């Protein structure tokens, strides 16, 4: 079982307490009425599907209940980092440092 660090609880806890909630840092369009069908489809459905480092949302459903963001390697399943919702996306340089 994966162990995941919740940035709100500040505890590393079993995956069973969490649920995956899709790709992170996808901003809802300010004015969807200006979107044509393709752009709206892309917003709704088109995702990075990264092989390797992936920015994703998780929710600590059976704990503090909060959504937060994580960087996980989809090949190794290793979590590089978790951080609170609303915090900026970490830069590649920061992640390289963590991956060492």
């Amino acid at each position, binding site marked *: 079982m994966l162990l995941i660090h919740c940035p709100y609880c500040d*505890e590393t806890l079993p995956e069973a*307490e969490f649920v995956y909630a899709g790709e992170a840092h996808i901003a809802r369009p300010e004015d969807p009425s200006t979107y044509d069908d393709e752009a709206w489809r892309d917003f709704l459905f088109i995702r990075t599907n990264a092989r390797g480092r992936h920015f994703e949302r998780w929710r600590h*459903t059976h704990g*503090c*209940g909060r959504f937060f963001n994580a960087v996980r390697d989809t090949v190794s399943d290793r979590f590089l980092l978790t951080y609170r919702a609303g915090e900026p996306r970490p830069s590649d340089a920061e992640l390289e440092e963590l991956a060492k």
Partner: protein
Amino acid sequence: MMTNAATLQDCLAATGLSGPVELRLLPEPARMALRADPAHGNALSGALRLELPTKIGDRANNDGLEVLCLGPDEWVVHTDGEGMAAVQAAFAEIYGEVPHSLVDISDRDIAIELRGAAAETLLSTGCPIDLSRIRPGHGKRTLFDSVQVVLLRDGEDLFRMEVWRSFLPHVWGLLNTANRELEVGL
């Protein structure tokens, strides 16, 4: 509310199983879910007449009132029936300045008490977490065999587990079975 627990106790006691851990259903306290912005900590502490814990898992008590911090903006408050009326009145007074939600959830959960040196072992049959990290006087929302529960550790060998009412027969059955297994050394 007491009668509900007593009736259930009668039904569930019929498992006929026993083991090293003393299991019983607790009479229902008044129980409230509080959601509010922790930035209003002072006003919230004032209304509760205790220091509102803001670290997840921490608890505070005063005068029959007990508060457990479940999330950054979420607490569960335990008290008796009269205490609940007082808390509700105090929160009604600050509602204008401190937006919050205070909901009576007394009937939502039923609390199980687990007492005995093997209590932690018994809980570990269904809880995926490292229970030794919950120190006496702390608590946490977690899982017991896929059922969401709130676990409170009152002593090294004393736990309370609050389970949503409809999941209770499942959890109670598992606990009693596992307790029996501990007894016979399985």
